[in-house]
């Protein structure tokens, strides 16, 4: 499953790159891109584990850039 999320307050380009790398390392993630310009996170992960993966991704993001928030609709 592939989903796109908005990233609020993503102000530092390098943090975006770091997040992308860190999320890619989460178990169950097939692919992930963080676009600093569009402030978007595209997450491609296994269907059945998607929610757990997303939760982990939120945690990872907060660790790297405390101000930045993944907006979950």
């Amino acid at each position, binding site marked *: 499953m592939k989903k796109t999320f908005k990233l609020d307050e993503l102000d530092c380009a390098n943090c975006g790159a770091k997040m992308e790398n860190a999320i890619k390392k989460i178990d169950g993630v097939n692919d992930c891109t963080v676009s600093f310009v569009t402030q978007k996170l595209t997450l491609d992960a296994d269907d059945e584990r998607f929610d757990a993966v997303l939760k982990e991704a939120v945690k990872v993001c907060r660790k790297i850039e*405390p101000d930045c928030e993944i907006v979950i609709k």
Partner: protein
Amino acid sequence: MKRKQKKILARIIISAVLLIVVKIFEPETWWLAALLYAVPYLIIGYDVLRKAAINIRNGQVFDENFLMVIATIGAYATGEFTEAAAVMLFYQTGELFQSVAVGKSRKSISALMDIRPDYANIEREGVLEQVDPEEVAVGDEIVIKVGEKIPLDGIVIEGESFVDTSALTGESLPRSVHPDEDVISGCINQTGLIKVRVTKPFGESTVSKILDLVENSASKKARAESFITRFARYYTPAVVFAALALAVIPPIFAGGWLNWLHRALIFLVISCPCALVISVPLSFFAGIGGAGKQGILVKGGCYLEVLSRSGTVVFDKTGTLTKGVFNVTVIHPERIGEARLIELAAYAESYSTHPIAKSIIDAYNADIDRRRIGACEELSGRGVRAVIDGLDVCAGNDKLMDEIGVKWHPCHHVGTTVHVAVDGVYAGHLVISDEVKETSAEAIKALKANGVGKTVMLTGDSKEVGEDVAKRLGIDEAYTQLLPADKVERVEALISQKSEKQALVFVGDGINDAPVLSRADIGIAMGAMGSDAAIEAADIVLMDDDPLKIAKAIRISRRTIRIVYENIIFALGVKLLVLILGALGLASMWAAVFADVGVSVIAILNAMRALRVKD
């Protein structure tokens, strides 16, 4: 400016004033100085300190906040109070500039793509209501007033108007629409109220497809971008370790550890790779935005990169270089008038469903009075025979003429020839051909001028027609009578012929070209507005039918790539220079801050140049 930015601006001003005041009263005793300088330092730097503390707890050692804090506290510890506070101040000012510049760029790029409709007017119980376009169903009737965006694709059922398609196609000339004509979402209704029956749900309408494409373009990263993010991952640790080495190793041999420590701190300030990481994707996105403004949709930065290397451009003929509409282009009557020849041919063909018959009837352009037609017979593969006003009229190819024993002669014009005989006497012929687009010849010339070495045309059409078109347009090679599968083979052969560095571009109308579009290095679909298959298979979509846009797309891609390399070289160059000067003790911490945030701001401004496209 956002609220957050205003707050930082206020802090910058307060801290700057305090810093000047403290500087004027230059305290005598060092502990008083340390205390007083701490005030402006903390005002400007408390959030950096806070973030550094949080991040270090999270194990983020190579975080830019943390490195900034070490650098400034280090300066403080070595007694450079003014410098510590001023560097922090300068850093925050640079960050502010950077965030304003990034915000502006994001805005101006998204403004280009501002085609999302906010609402649709739907009539319910006689009252016009504004609803979310997503709630409108297929078959609903919507009203579009003057100045409003067309929210969904549909068919006009009432009213006439001119619509501005420039946001989608880059074409500034408005298009007129009448009842029973299709309109596409994203256009702006300019002159009259129209009523439209919706034919596609919002999620599948043109506007959604384009927005999707643009938004996802950022996730298809170019090689230059991946390179720079990979580079950034090693850059920071490398610089930090270099700083460590600089602080420890030289003093062992030469002494003067305070001096070396200061130089090492300069390294820490330069260690953030932000300028690089920001400017490369921003340049690509600006390039994609600028192309979008021209009606050229690029699906990702990686495609701009490949497009800039295009060396061979392969065209499909019908619908790409030609209009794909068959028209009567030549009328050669014998013994009767031109109008009479068309009239007879149109009457004879009036019951036929063949595309050629349709174009003859279109050329006649008057109502057909079926009472004038007597017996009518379709002779498959040859033509038609009909009795019109009592005359025996035969219209068809040379085989038909031979069959009825009429002497005919070939036409020197290339195309499909329809001979007409009246009561067994030759009356002349019509030639039906696909017209070449007005801009095709110019487009080929523009490609050559932009360094495309080879142009090739592939077509399923006959040898004469194909070669004639190729010759008239100045295309180097033409391959005719190809089946769709042959086209793929041909493209593969062409790919193996060209040099590794150059890319092969295939341009088609996207209707039956999907396999070739995806096989080529870059597939460009044109006139594809609304065609799902084309948008799916192509890497670049031209929103209008103009082949001239191909050369323009190549120019945009080259310009974008140049800006990307300028930014990479500039940012790395300045950083390297300041690192060397810093190691030699020739650069101050000020220069280091410039090499960090100043370079970022300049690179961002440079990236935005990709947004502007010259004609």
